[in-house]
């Protein structure tokens, strides 16, 4: 098997729910429940799912912005969740994160140049002159003019800011970037530019991405592999093309069917989901998708499905594929 840059094993993030009257723990929101995946060097893993399914929490728990209850996050063999402060900062140099809202991701009181140079400074990069030079290089790497170095965030557009955020992340030469819905807040035309830029940078610097998004078309374009998440759990993982060609989990099928087609004559049987995602606190027994599943069986009500390999690196958590 090829070397993996990141292996996440059985990651769990549970938030305690306190009682309304007494501050005692009455239950847990299982935001991330037993999530495992792996990412190879220079490879993109797309993590898709609807709002509130735990995608963002997964990303944040991986770099300890949120505390995880259990599991392992192995970055080049080192478990991030177990590292001391010193080692953690060393690893963070290798893992960067891009946030959804480029308007909130930059300090409004710092010029773009200062923001990039600061990152170089805290990682002991050369002299002041060298840092200025590097900042100018970085900003050109993300295809922006050097003149922007003296601007403040409020003077830039969303797409430009997202590039700055990217330049800042690149300043530390990361091997992995967690992209948390990086294009969702942008206009469609700008989305394409940003996605292309991400692709170019990946080719150039051999960076791996964990690309978190709810937008399937973007994920399809970028990712080598895709993991579909539902209610805190990954329900299907496959290579991008395989997943789109043969979606196996009923949830994935519904998700793919929700992507609008540009061909008006194409009539297909659409699987439509009814209802909302059930509350994360009220998970009972069985498969967590059973309340909305079009293929629900007796078994789904009381037995949680195991991960089943349907061949070609395609894994599904569904009783439909269980071999008796």
């Amino acid at each position, binding site marked *: 098997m090829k070397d993996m840059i990141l292996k996440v094993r059985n990651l769990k993030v549970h938030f305690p729910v306190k009682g309304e009257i007494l501050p005692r723990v009455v239950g847990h929101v299982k935001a991330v429940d037993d999530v495992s995946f792996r990412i190879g060097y220079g490879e993109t893993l797309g993590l898709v799912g609807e709002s509130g399914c735990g995608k963002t929490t997964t990303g944040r728990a991986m770099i300890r912005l949120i505390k995880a209850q259990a599991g392992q996050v192995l970055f080049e063999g080192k478990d991030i969740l177990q590292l001391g402060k010193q080692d953690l900062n060393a690893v963070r140099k290798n893992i960067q994160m891009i946030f959804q809202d480029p308007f909130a991701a930059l*300090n409004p009181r*710092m010029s773009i140049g200062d923001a990039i140079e600061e990152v170089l400074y805290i990682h002991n990069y050369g002299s002041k002159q060298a840092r200025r030079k590097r900042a100018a290089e970085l900003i050109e790497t993300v295809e922006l003019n050097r003149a922007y*170095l003296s601007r403040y965030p409020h003077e830039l557009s969303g797409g430009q800011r997202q590039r700055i955020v990217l330049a800042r992340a690149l300043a530390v030469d990361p091997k992995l970037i967690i992209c948390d819905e990086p294009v969702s807040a942008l206009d469609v035309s700008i989305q394409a530019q940003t996605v292309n830029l991400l692709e170019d940078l990946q080719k150039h610097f051999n960076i791996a991405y964990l690309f978190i998004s709810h937008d399937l078309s973007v994920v399809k374009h970028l990712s080598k592999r895709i993991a579909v998440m539902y209610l805190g759990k990954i329900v299907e993982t496959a290579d991008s093309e395989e997943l789109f060609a043969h979606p196996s989990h009923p949830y994935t099928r519904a998700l793919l069917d929700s992507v609008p087609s540009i061909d008006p004559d194409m009539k297909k049987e659409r699987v439509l989901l009814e209802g909302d995602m059930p509350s994360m606190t009220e998970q009972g027994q069985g498969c967590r998708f059973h309340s909305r599943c079009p293929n629900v069986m007796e078994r789904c009500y009381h037995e949680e499905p195991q991960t089943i390999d349907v061949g070609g690196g395609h894994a599904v958590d569904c009783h439909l594929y269980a071999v008796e």
Partner: protein
Amino acid sequence: MTDLALDRDKMKRKGRFARFLKQLFANKMARFGGTVIFLLFLLAVFAPVIAPYEYDAMNLPEMLKAPGFGNILGTDEFGRDVFSRIVYGTRISFTVGFLAVGISLLIGTILGALAGYYGGALDYVISGITDIAWSFPVTLLAIVFVAALGPSLINMIIAMAIVSWSGFARLVRGQFLSLREKEFVQAARVLGMRDRRIIFRHMLPNALAPVIVLTTLEVPKAIIVEASLSFLGLGAQPPTPSWGAIMNSGKSYLMEAPWISIFPGLMIVVIVMGFNLFGDALRDTLDPRLKD
């Protein structure tokens, strides 16, 4: 390119600040309040030049003289020139106002920042103390402290600072709580920055605007508390010419020589109004959303 890059911070900062000042002084109230504060500040700085007499120069034959030629605001029961005493009193008001507020700003900001940034048990303890401090009436608590420490100018400043930091702590804590969740702060953490750098470089500058406004609004309050305490004899001791103390000494002669109390009282009104108008204008400029 390097020259351009080197100059850019300076140019940018200056441009921003100049724009801010222009915006601020477009406001009539800011101009008025600012002018009042500025003139009174000059009065305090150049007191020895402006005052015709020493503040403690007694001249018993001239006592309780009505305002007029020679003593434009009259004289007190010891024949001291009321105008000169008021001019020197400006120094007391400014010193106490700025020092007391400065110290409480420092205490409040540090505690508020710690509570807001680290949260958890530390926040619980600090917030508890802050709420207790907040619930006491400032003047009353200051009286208790001064009574315990003994009446003097320094003790009064200390007492006022101990009593009034809670407003700053609450404000800064609230700012930090909301900033902590901002993505640029999270990004700073991901980029491997230390807590100290995140607090001082990323959070404090963004928390400052309302703190500055609160400061300008706390100074006049401190000036009033100072005058009140001195009026009660708990602050500046005679012959120190605090406005409150002058008013107190004049109260026995209110019928025969009302000018002794009236003029320092008017000065308190003017200085407090100046600061309040300026503070309000500052708030409107720094945070337009708060405008009524």
